[in-house]
């Protein structure tokens, strides 16, 4: 550092030139105005960031406070009393660990099902011109706009007769239905971006359509498909109403937390909120390059 300070030294003699230049008639006010604007811009950005990030910091703080610190008033907004007591208490409450495992299982199943069922349709929409293609896309858009609540009550009755009520598979099927339209539309946009030429080249060199797809298209499309998988997992992880209606004992984590809201202490709710928020931080971080594609584009 001190070595770097050396070269700055010669700049000093130049300083008196500053006011002299201003006197020589160069109008510096636009520059100053620009600098002020930049500062205001930063200020606004920081203010919005505070609004967005502070709640996450505070729920983290609450989840890592001891029970005693949570009962204190006024609470400290600095991490003075970090403890895992609250989180441990939450994890050891009845049904939390199983519901966490259920959430993961439901999410993974929904990802597998929605991609297995949806990606082929996305490929068809991207690559073939056929009667009913636009109509199918419109159907997909409509289904995406329909509320879960309409779906879950009749599905509950249906699943009871199929013996799928209160099972991981049942909830996963409902989440698949919710994620499928988006998966089809996203994978269609992913496949459209794979150059047709490389696929045709593979076909010309004698690959079967399936081999051309597997060895040429899929490697290029994989990141986009992975992003759509994470999208489905996030949807499944966050979906609470349907999961609460379709299961009583085998609930997912959000359904379990929702179901026990009214008769649980605040510490439980804060720890639950934190447990639900943490994965989303990871998801968004992993997805940061795809955010605009996933949530931004709505139809192509």
């Amino acid at each position, binding site marked *: 550092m001190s070595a770097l300070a050396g070269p700055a030294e010669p700049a000093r003699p130049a300083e008196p030139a500053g006011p002299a230049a201003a006197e020589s008639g160069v109008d510096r006010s636009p520059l100053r105005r620009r600098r002020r604007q930049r500062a205001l*811009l*930063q200020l606004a*950005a920081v203010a*919005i*960031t505070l*609004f*967005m*990030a502070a*709640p*996450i910091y505070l*729920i983290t*703080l*609450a989840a890592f406070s001891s029970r005693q610190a949570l009962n204190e*008033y*006024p609470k400290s*907004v600095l991490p003075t009393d970090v403890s895992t007591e609250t989180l441990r208490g939450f994890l050891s409450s009845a049904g939390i660990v199983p519901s966490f495992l259920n959430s993961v299982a439901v999410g993974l199943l929904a990802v597998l099902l929605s991609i297995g069922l*949806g990606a*082929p*349709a996305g490929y*068809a929409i991207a690559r*073939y*011109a056929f009667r009913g*293609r636009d109509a199918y896309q419109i159907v997909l*858009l409509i*289904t995406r*706009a*329909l509320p*879960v*609540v*309409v*779906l879950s*009550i*009749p*599905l509950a009755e*249906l699943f009871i007769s199929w013996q799928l009520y209160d099972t991981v598979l049942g909830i996963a099927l409902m989440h*698949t*239905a919710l994620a*499928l339209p988006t998966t089809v539309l996203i994978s269609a946009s992913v496949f459209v971006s794979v150059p047709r030429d490389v696929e045709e080249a593979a076909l010309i060199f004698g690959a079967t359509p399936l081999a051309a797809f597997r060895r040429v298209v899929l490697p290029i499309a994989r990141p986009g498909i992975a992003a759509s998988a994470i999208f489905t997992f996030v949807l499944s*992880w*966050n979906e*609470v*109403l349907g999961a609460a*209606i379709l299961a009583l004992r085998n609930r997912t984590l*959000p359904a379990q*937390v*929702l179901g026990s809201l009214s008769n649980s202490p*605040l510490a439980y*709710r*804060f720890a639950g*909120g934190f447990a*639900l*928020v943490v994965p989303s931080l990871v*998801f*968004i971080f992993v997805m*940061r390059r795809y*955010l605009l594609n996933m*949530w*931004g584009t*709505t*139809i192509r």
Partner: protein
Amino acid sequence: MSSAAGRPGRLRLPTPYLLLIPSALTLAALFGWPMVQGVLAAFRHDGGFSLDNVHRMVSDQRFGSAVRNTLLLIAVVVPLQFVLALAMALLLQARPKFSGLYFYLWAVPLAISDLAAGLVWLSILDDQGYLNSVLHRLGLGDGYSWLSYQHGSTMFLAVVVAEVWRATALVLVILVAGMQVIPRDYDEAAAVFGATFWQRLRYVTLPLLKPSLQVALILRTILAFQTFAVARALTGDNYPLLVGETYQWYLDLQNPGVASAIALLILAISIFTASIYLRALRQPDAIREAR
């Protein structure tokens, strides 16, 4: 689109239909069929057609306030989110330092559920929460019950703040994506000719952003009808919303009929909005081609 249509001859087998069938069947079984059943269940009572469920729905004393709260929440939250998201998108557009980091942090609530958002804000707005703690330390007020049912307006505000915090990110991402495809030349040209910031926003950016605005508006409105866990986490059942009422009727009162009737009402509103959604989507195509 046109490139696919412009290649007749190749690939005219029923292959596309084979590829579509799995997803179409799944949607029919898990979307179409339940939907029909849901409509029927709303009008069925003791085995026959009846409007009993609808009567019970309407005569429930919480129904009126649930409708009112839902509509009021949407009317307040959605415009707020648009103003905020537009400001945020314009800020990012100006490329301040760390804009990448800002975008990441602002987008984080995208993946946060409304239940989690409710619990997060509960830690702040609870009687002994962080907001009251800070106010107390600053000597401002002594423990106001923001979420008490006696204070209807702050209870409403709490739900609004939590929803704005959680769901503005969706609007932001759609608007940022829309702004990226607008050529910067227009804005720069307007600036060269001396247009002020507000003039450029009013006459250049907003008209070009219209397709994204429409999509975001309708998507956000439809999703806003499904809000309920925020209110439940923050206020228990003191702030009834339509979807929350379905939950209540189905799980707590064990009455699938009335629950279906409310669900049908939400469906009707959603279809109404979705039809606008579709009409709005016709426009982006035309605009995209014009570009």
